[in-house]
Each structure stands twice: as structure tokens, then as C-alpha cells.
């Protein structure tokens, strides 16, 4: 249907969600359901001397209490695996229930199953664990120091991996000859994803069929099934069904396979009845994979014209107590490869040490590696604007990869397929009214460095999304493919059902995917149903993360639609007694070229495909197609963001005044949804810059484990965003789309920090680590 692509049609997901009818995992109430409560370590590091479950077992209403012994007795693998391997990666065992040692606060040591969730919690408190507390280390730098407590005996010095990309010698040479250099020591703060729906699972094993069904908070049910069956429960894959019902946000945290969901599965397996577990906020914050947590030294060299000649980055990246599903990939292939940013940098070297700490694991969180890389590059570019005297705009423009240089091969593996960076920046400058802002800033500075200073910060970012292609990611260590599947079925009456391997958890796939089909197949969006998130319904899928659903999942759907049209042409040609080559497909009709009256609608052709009475000899009946789309490359969204802040130099408080974002995410399927994704990403990135911080104390206790201490962005602290787009279609996928889920979170942290540092320029401030709490700002203003 013409005009449906690129249109802000309202979401079909919403009627259920605005009336309270949408069913999230914890909403599922099943006959005979018991409730699990997991007993967790209160220590960051301890030896388990013994566990006394007798008081819990005899507590009224308790069905069972399981420990590591029961995992062993069940004869299942009982492990939580890592899904991305690097050369020489240390992969210490991660048992789903700790047997002899706990390695972070929240590590599971037992599980109580009871008839009621209140009773399960009561009994969990009656499981007596005899711990021998051991020294712990929670800080990524401290963990590498001599004599630091060891997280795993088989990872000496707490080093999980030592990885590098780029060439070191050319970088050293660039620095030796540089006209200007800038350098920075920074911490990229640890974040807790905080999907507002905590993780949950409802496992229902039926011994009469041998089938286990697990409804759970998943971004990728097939990946969860694979890891759950292979490494944890040891069940055959075809006997396990994983369903993601409504999922209340993920942001990466619901990609990973965790111990808890496997434990719930074990409980159901053992008890032969449904068992539900829903994390409390505290539990989910202690056990969800966190994000970021880097300590980085970085430096950039420039020639006399302000052109970048070299970039050097050395990062210590926390892995936490165990390697989470994709953890090793995040600070390496999703980080080091992004170091060229939007710039033509002739020499780059990035070295990363992965570090075990006695904390929750660290893995992909919205942006995953790319926000950290963008922060390095864009903070250095801000400093470079000062050091070269070119200012923040000219220093960037001078170094942008020119529009005629694409495809552009960076020094860090990625080859950018397309880009046009200047117009996005120009549009952002126009929208923000840069010249007026500069006058306002000068007037405030001229006014005796008054109490309320204004700052303007830029971030010109690039991201690589739509993780691909499979062969490449496989060569880099991925233990999974990076394609996506789509099964498109045209029903005999011409309506359509799409089965996609993408797994929406707030993104609105049902709406946008129906738009893709409607546009390509010439049917109304309402004639298209989109099914996702169920391993029994969808053949296989990689799921939703890394801003990949439109570019990879959407392209798979487009591929299937194209196959259906090709097959339909053969059927229509037979019925119209024409040659298939002479048929055109337009607006839902197969037409003989040049003879507009000789046409058949999709429904007519579909019906014949299923009747197969009057049918081509060499064609199978039916009208459906499956596509496994494996992209040729990543996609490369980009843009320029500008943030304007006011800083109260007396208290250090920051007020957001303006935020303008000009993004290029390629072709847009639904502008309303694209803008919504950007808004959400911006809030999370601004949250990282200003408020969010996962803090462990020296003993490994999570000090900011609840919303009393972990400050999420709240409505009264944010502003309306000003957005616009440029459009540079992706040249290598059929839709020309790139991806938008993470752009806001990638671009915004340096824009905010650069703005604050710009505001404080009269005070000689050049850097403040995130989050920019008022106290840190105040201390920076008053530093000698």
C-alpha cells in the first residue's frame, strides 16, 4: 500500500497496553503455580561452609528448597555459559547455583519454592548459610593491582582477556611528530539497566509430555532456549518452548542468559508443576548485567592544521564476577572498532584489558561499547577544539570523513558503507541557534563570571548496528550467527501473517513490520499480523538488540515478501496465460505489462496457490516464504547532537536548557516510533551523564542498589527534545534502514559533559567524570 512506509501510523500494540490487558510474565496466573524465592549471597566473596535448609523446608507452605547439591543430583549441566569467545579468554565456570564459593552480592545459593510468594520470601530468610567471608575487590583498577583478591583461581591477576586493535607503531610516530596533543583519564560510570519490569520467569514442566514451557522476560527467546538447554538444564531443544509475552523494556539486560531463569526451570522440572519467580527491584539490580564500567586513558595527536594524526586508547573494562552472555564482545569488537568516530584518523591503537571483579557481571546495555567509544572520541574532540584553537565545530568538520570518501575503511576494522556528516552538523547548528547562544554565553562570562554559566556541548557520533555478517562475527568469536529469520505467510484470502525472529519489548515491531509488508506487498497494514517472541511459533530468531531489528529483521521480512511476489507472478502468469517475465506487481495486483485489464489481486492468486487446481506444473502449492537474512555489513547511523546547559557554580547544579539532535538513521519506516526511540535513548544517555551510577563499596556491597540511591532520569529533570533528521539510506539492505534504538544513548553523554565543561571554561575545568553530580561540579569549580 503506497504511503504507508515513512508514515507515523499509531501503534497496534497500544490498545492492550493502555487498558491494562497486556500480559507481562508476572501477570500470568496459572493453575497450580508455585512461587520461587532465591536465596542470595549477602557477601561479595565468601566460601560456603554449609547450608541448613531444615527450617525453611518445614516452614508451612513450602514445597521445596534446592541448593547446588540438587543441581548435581539432577544430573544436568547446571552452568551459565558465555557466548562470545576471544583469543586466550579465561572462561571460569559459572554454576547456576553456587556450590562452594560466592563471587558477588546476589550470587544464588539456594531456592525456596512455596505455595505463595510471601511464604517463599519468609522461608528464604530461614535458609541458614554458613559463610566464610573472603576479601573482595569491586573496582576495575584495584582488581589489577598486585595482591588484589582473586575472583577466579583460573584467571590469575583477575585478567579475563588482553585485546588490542589497530597498529601501535604508527600511533607512536604520530604522537612523536604532533603539533598538538590532548589526553584524558576518564571513568565511564557503571550503569544498571533498570527496565521498569524486573526480570521474571514462569516455568511449566509437564512430565506427561516431557515439554517445558518457560514464559520469561526475554529479548531473544531462541538464544535463551539454546543456552538454557545446552548449558543449564540439559534438555533437548525441541522439548523446550520459550515465550516472551509482553516484555517491559530490556535495554540489553534481557538478552543475557542468567542463572535465575534456569533455576526456575530446574524447580519446575523437579516438582512437575508451574513455578514462577519475579525479581524484586533489589534482586534485579544485584543480578542483571550492568553496563559500561571502564577506566580509560586516551590521547589524540594533531598536525599543525588541526588534522588528527593518531589516537591512542587504553581501557580497563570490568567483566564482573562471571562472563555474561556477550560480555567479552562489548568492550572489544563493539568498542575498539568504533574509535574512528566520524573522523578520518590515519593511525589508531586501542588496547583493552577485561577484568574480573566481585560485582554483578557487565554486559551489553543500550549502546554496548559504542557509547563508551563515542565518549572517548567526542571528549577528546572537545579538548582538541580548545588545544588547536579551532573550536568544537571546525575541529570536527576539518576531520570528518568526506562525503565522497565512502565506502571508508577505518584503521579499526570497520568499513563505513555510507555517510554524509557535514549536513547533520549544519542542521543542528541552525536548529540550536548557535550564534545567539555564543553571544549569550559571552555576555554571562563577561558579567564577572556570574553564578549561572551557560555551556554548549557537541557530540558527532557514529554507531555500528545491525550486528553482522555471521561469518565475520563468527571469526571474531561469536558463538552465534547474526542473521535474522522471517517467515511470511499469505493466507488463502490474501491476509498475511509474519513470523519474525526479532522479539519486540517496547519497540513496536508489530506496527513497523506490518508497515514493511504493507508497503512491499500492497496490502493494508491491518491485513498483516506480526508474530514474535515464541520459539514454538517462530522457526529460529536471534532477537532484538544492537538496533538490529529493522535493518536485519526487517530486511528478512522484505526478502520473504519479494519471494512471495516472485512466486505469485508465476501463479498469476499461469492463470492469466502470460509469461511470468511479463508480469508486474503493484498495489496488491499482479498485472500483465501493457494490458492493465489483465490483472489478479493478491487474494485471488493466494486462493489459487492453496487450491492448486489450476496451477503451474513445476510449482509447489501454498504462498509463503522464509528468509534467513544475513547482512553484508553493519549499518552506520550517525548524527550531531548539541546540548545546552546552565550551571549554578555556587552549588554545582546543572539545568538542561536545550537538547537538539540531528540523526541519520537511513530510511525511516515510522517517524513517530523513530523519534520515540531517540527520546528514550537520549534520556538514558543524559541519565548516565548527570545522575546514574552503580556504586560498590570496597567490600563489594552495591550501595546504589535501590531507587533511593540510583537516580534514574525523572520527568521533572528532563526537557522536550528538538529532533530532526538527514537521510542517507543504507546502501546494502533492501530497506535502506540503519537502526535507531541506541543512537540517543550513544551520542548524548559526551554532548552533556562537553556542555558542562564548556560552561566551566572560565574556571579552568577540562573534565569531570560522569555522573556530573552537583558536588563533583562544585569541587571542580573550586579546585585549585
Amino acid at each position: 500500500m503506497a504511503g504507508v512506509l515513512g508514515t507515523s501510523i499509531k501503534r497496534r500494540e497500544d490498545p492492550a497496553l493502555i487498558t491494562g490487558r497486556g500480559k507481562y510474565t508476572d501477570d500470568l496466573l496459572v493453575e497450580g503455580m508455585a512461587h520461587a524465592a532465591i536465596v542470595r549471597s549477602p557477601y561479595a566473596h565468601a566460601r560456603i561452609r554449609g547450608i541448613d535448609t531444615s527450617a525453611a523446608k518445614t516452614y508451612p507452605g513450602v514445597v521445596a528448597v534446592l541448593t547446588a547439591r540438587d543441581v548435581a543430583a539432577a544430573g544436568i549441566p547446571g552452568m551459565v555459559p558465555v557466548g562470545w569467545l576471544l583469543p586466550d579468554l579465561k572462561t571460569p565456570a559459572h554454576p547456576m547455583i553456587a556450590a562452594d564459593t560466592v563471587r558477588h552480592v546476589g550470587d544464588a545459593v539456594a531456592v525456596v519454592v512455596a505455595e505463595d510468594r510471601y511464604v517463599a520470601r519468609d522461608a528464604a530468610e530461614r535458609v541458614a548459610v554458613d559463610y566464610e567471608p573472603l576479601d573482595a575487590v569491586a573496582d576495575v583498577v584495584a582488581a589489577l593491582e598486585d595482591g588484589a583478591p582473586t575472583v577466579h583461581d583460573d584467571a590469575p591477576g583477575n585478567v579475563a582477556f588482553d585485546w588490542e586493535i589497530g597498529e601501535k607503531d604508527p600511533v607512536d610516530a604520530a604522537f612523536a611528530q604532533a603539533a598538538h596533543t590532548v589526553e584524558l583519564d576518564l571513568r565511564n560510570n557503571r550503569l544498571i539497566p533498570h527496565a521498569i519490569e524486573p526480570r521474571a520467569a514462569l516455568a511449566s514442566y509437564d512430565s506427561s509430555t516431557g515439554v517445558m514451557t518457560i514464559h520469561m522476560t526475554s529479548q531473544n527467546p531462541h538464544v535463551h532456549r539454546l543456552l538454557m538447554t545446552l548449558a543449564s538444564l540439559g534438555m533437548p531443544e525441541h522439548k523446550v518452548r520459550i515465550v516472551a509475552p509482553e516484555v517491559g523494556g530490556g535495554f540489553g539486560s534481557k538478552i543475557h542468559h542468567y542463572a535465575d531463569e534456569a533455576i526456575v526451570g530446574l524447580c519446575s522440572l523437579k516438582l512437575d508443576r508451574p513455578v514462577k519467580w519475579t525479581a524484586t527491584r533489589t534482586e534485579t539490580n544485584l543480578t542483571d548485567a550492568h553496563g559500561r564500567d571502564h577506566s580509560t586513558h586516551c590521547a589524540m595527536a594533531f598536525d599543525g592544521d588541526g588534522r588528527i594524526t593518531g589516537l591512542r586508547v587504553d581501557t580497563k573494562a570490568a567483566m564482573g564476577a562471571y562472563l555474561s552472555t556477550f560480555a567479552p564482545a562489548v568492550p572489544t569488537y563493539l568498542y575498539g572498532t568504533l574509535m574512528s568516530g566520524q573522523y578520518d584518523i590515519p593511525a589508531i591503537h586501542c588496547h583493552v584489558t577485561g577484568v574480573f571483579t566481585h560485582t554483578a557481571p557487565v554486559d551489553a546495555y543500550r549502546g554496548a561499547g559504542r557509547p563508551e567509544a563515542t565518549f572517548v572520541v567526542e571528549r577528546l574532540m572537545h579538548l582538541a577544539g580548545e588545544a588547536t584553537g579551532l573550536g568544537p565545530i571546525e575541529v570536527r568538520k576539518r576531520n570528518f570523513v568526506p562525503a565522497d570518501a565512502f565506502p571508508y575503511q577505518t584503521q579499526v576494522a570497520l568499513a563505513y558503507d555510507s555517510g554524509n556528516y557535514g549536513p547533520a552538523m549544519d542542521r543542528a547548528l541552525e536548529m540550536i541557534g548557535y550564534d545567539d547562544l555564543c553571544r549569550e554565553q559571552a555576555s554571562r562570562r563577561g558579567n564577572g563570571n556570574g553564578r549561572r554559566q551557560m555551556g554548549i556541548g557537541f557530540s558527532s557520533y557514529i554507531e555500528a548496528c545491525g550486528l553482522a555478517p555471521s561469518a565475520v562475527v563468527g571469526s571474531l568469536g561469536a558463538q552465534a550467527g547474526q542473521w535474522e529469520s522471517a517467515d511470511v505467510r499469505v493466507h488463502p484470502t490474501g491476509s498475511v501473517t509474519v513470523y519474525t525472529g526479532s522479539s519486540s519489548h517496547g519497540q513496536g515491531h508489530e506496527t513497523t513490520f506490518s508497515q514493511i509488508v504493507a508497503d512491499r506487498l500492497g496490502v493494508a497494514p491491518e491485513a498483516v499480523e506480526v508474530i514474535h517472541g515464541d520459539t514454538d511459533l517462530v522457526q529460529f530468531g536471534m532477537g532484538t538488540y544492537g538496533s538490529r531489528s529493522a535493518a536485519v529483521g526487517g530486511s528478512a521480512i522484505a526478502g520473504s515478501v519479494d519471494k512471495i511476489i516472485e512466486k505469485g507472478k508465476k501463479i498469476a502468469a499461469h492463470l492469466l496465460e502470460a509469461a511470468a517475465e511479463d508480469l508486474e506487481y503493484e498495489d496488491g495486483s499482479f498485472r500483465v505489462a501493457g494490458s492493465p485489464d489483465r490483472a489478479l489481486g493478491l487474494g485471488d492468486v493466494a486462493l489459487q496457490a492453496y487450491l492448486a487446481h489450476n496451477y503451474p506444473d513445476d510449482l509447489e502449492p501454498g504462498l509463503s516464504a522464509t528468509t534467513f537474512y544475513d547482512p553484508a555489513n553493519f549499518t552506520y547511523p550517525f548524527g550531531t547532537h548539541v546540548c545546552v546547559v546552565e550551571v549554578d557554580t555556587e552549588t554545582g547544579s546543572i539545568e538542561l536548557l536545550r537538547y537538539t539532535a540531528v540523526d541519520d538513521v537511513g530510511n525511516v519506516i515510522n517517524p513517530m516510533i523513530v523519534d520515540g526511540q531517540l527520546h528514550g535513548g537520549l534520556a538514558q544517555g543524559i541519565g548516565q551523564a548527570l545522575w546514574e551510577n552503580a556504586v560498590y563499596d570496597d567490600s563489594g556491597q552495591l550501595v546504589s542498589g535501590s531507587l533511593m540511591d540510583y537516580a534514574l532520569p525523572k520527568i521533572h529533570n528532563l526537557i522536550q527534545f528538538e529532533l530532526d533528521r538527514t537521510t542517507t539510506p543504507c546502501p546494502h539492505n533492501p530497506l535502506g534502514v540503519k537502526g535507531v534504538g541506541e543512537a540517543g544513548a550513544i551520542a548524548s553523554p559526551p554532548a552533556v559533559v562537553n556542555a558542562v565543561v564548556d560552561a566551566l571554561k572560565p574556571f579552568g575545568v577540562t573534565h569531570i567524570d560522569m555522573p556530573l553530580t552537583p558536588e563533583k561540579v562544585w569541587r571542580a569549580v573550586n579546585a585549585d
Partner: protein
Amino acid sequence: MTVSIQLEVNGKPVQAEVEPRRLLVHFLREDLGLTGANIGCETSLCGACTILVDGNAVKSCTMLAAQADGAAVTTIEGLARNGELHPLQDGFWEKHGLQCGYCTPGMILSANYLLEQNPSPSDEEIREGLKGNICRCTGYHNIVEAVKYAAERMS
């Protein structure tokens, strides 16, 4: 022990025996099957469990079911009337004021209370009025738009 309670939920009388410690949100979700009110935290900060008790927005995770004895409770399930969406439900749909939808029932009921108090709020008053509800998806931009849309339609 149990406590005997009688209340009105979405216009219908309800009678039940509850444990004193049973939180109102669990009573609504598990005993009455009204799963629209969600739980996102345990520190009375996220607001996902917001409902109306005697017309006032409250956090049902910070209220015992026993305290609701005699009250008139409205949950998201009771907001649409005669099959017609409330202007706020319409506004959230129209303006893309939700993504994952988990915070949405609470957000809509808080907004409903806000508009009862202040039928034509400014952007700032909307932001102040909804500060007890956390959304992780939308960045709040379209929530503000949705409430303004509803306010206009309701005036």
C-alpha cells in the same frame, strides 16, 4: 489472622478475607486478576502501581489491602467507560506516550489525577505532577504531549 475487607473496585463491590500483610497491589493483581497495576520497585518511587483510591492517585504497593477497606478503587481496567477509551488512554496512543507499556497504567492514572486537580496544566506542571512515575522508555517527551492532548480534549 485475616482481615475482612469490603471495597468497590472499578464500580463493582468486592468482599475478601486477606492476610494483614497483603499489599493492595497484590490483592488487585493476584486475588482479583487486575494485573494492570504493575510493580517496578519496592521503595515507593517508580509509580507503576499507581491506582486511584477514592479519586486520589496512590501507590498500591505502599498500601495494605486492609487499608482499602471501604474505599472506592479505580484501576486502569476501569478507566475506559462503555468501551470508549478515556481521553488520556487515547492521548497516550495518539502521541506515542508509551513503548513497553509497563509504566503506562500508573502513568495514565497519575495523569488522570493531575488533570482532575488542574485541567489545563503547563508543561512544567505536567512534569511536576508526574514526578512520582518513572518511565525508562520514552524519555517522557511524548508523555507530556499525551497529557496535553488529553487535557485539550477534556476541556
